[in-house]
């Protein structure tokens, strides 16, 4: 997907930066400063992939929560 934005900085955004901004998205809170830093990197794909990975992590997380809850029942 071609992607145009003015201030395209060359260096690839650090992976953990991407991860924590996607986590912030899941949480629903993000500062404008980080928001601009995120979109200044000009590369779209890392965020989408990280979003999918963290969505999977969320699913596994809730599954573990379910197993934890089930352990209380007499199963």
């Amino acid at each position, binding site marked *: *997907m*071609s992607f145009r934005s003015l201030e395209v900085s060359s260096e690839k955004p650090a992976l953990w930066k991407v991860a924590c901004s996607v986590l912030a998205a899941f949480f629903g809170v993000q500062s404008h400063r980080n928001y601009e830093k995120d979109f200044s990197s000009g590369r779209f794909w890392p965020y989408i992939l990280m979003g999918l990975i963290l969505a999977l992590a969320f699913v596994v997380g809730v599954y573990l929560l379910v197993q934890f809850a089930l352990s209380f029942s*007499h*199963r």
Partner: protein
Amino acid sequence: MNAPRNHKRTVTTLILGCVLMFGFGFALVPLYDVFCRVTGLNGKVELVPAHPEKLGQVDKTRQVKLQLVAVNNETMPWRFKPENSIVELSPGEMYQTAYIARNLTSGFMIAQAVPSVSPSEAAPYLNKINCFCFERQPLLAQEEKAMPLVLSVDPELPKHIHTITLSYTLFDITPESEQVAAIGGGSLR
């Protein structure tokens, strides 16, 4: 107006995405079957004979109540009943029984039995060695037949399950030629 932007890359990527999701919609069908086998979701049971070595040794310490239930689907006028409906089993023990089916109509019919287990967590622990639901059951007019069922309960059945209900629903799958098309008159239900 400046030259129209070249959207080919964007549009092809998105259309590819659509085709993939359309395929994903259809892929959900086998995915669902695999998921049901593994978790016993919806009480689904193996439709292929359990291979022998899965039958562990008999666990005499526990008794499990097995209830056999027969259900006719709407289009199925046969008389369909288990030989005996409630039996106490110990896990691992081989149990042989049969379902009696009698074609009460005046025509030749073929039936398909669909098994279902409740509670659904027990489904993966029901090993069926031979079951009349593995293949289609034809019956001539007024013919009666005892359809065999051989099964055993897996000893690893979770401790909290005491009763397993195995139900068979009988469906009419007589080919089109002998049966009035089901669609036409279905309107005023």
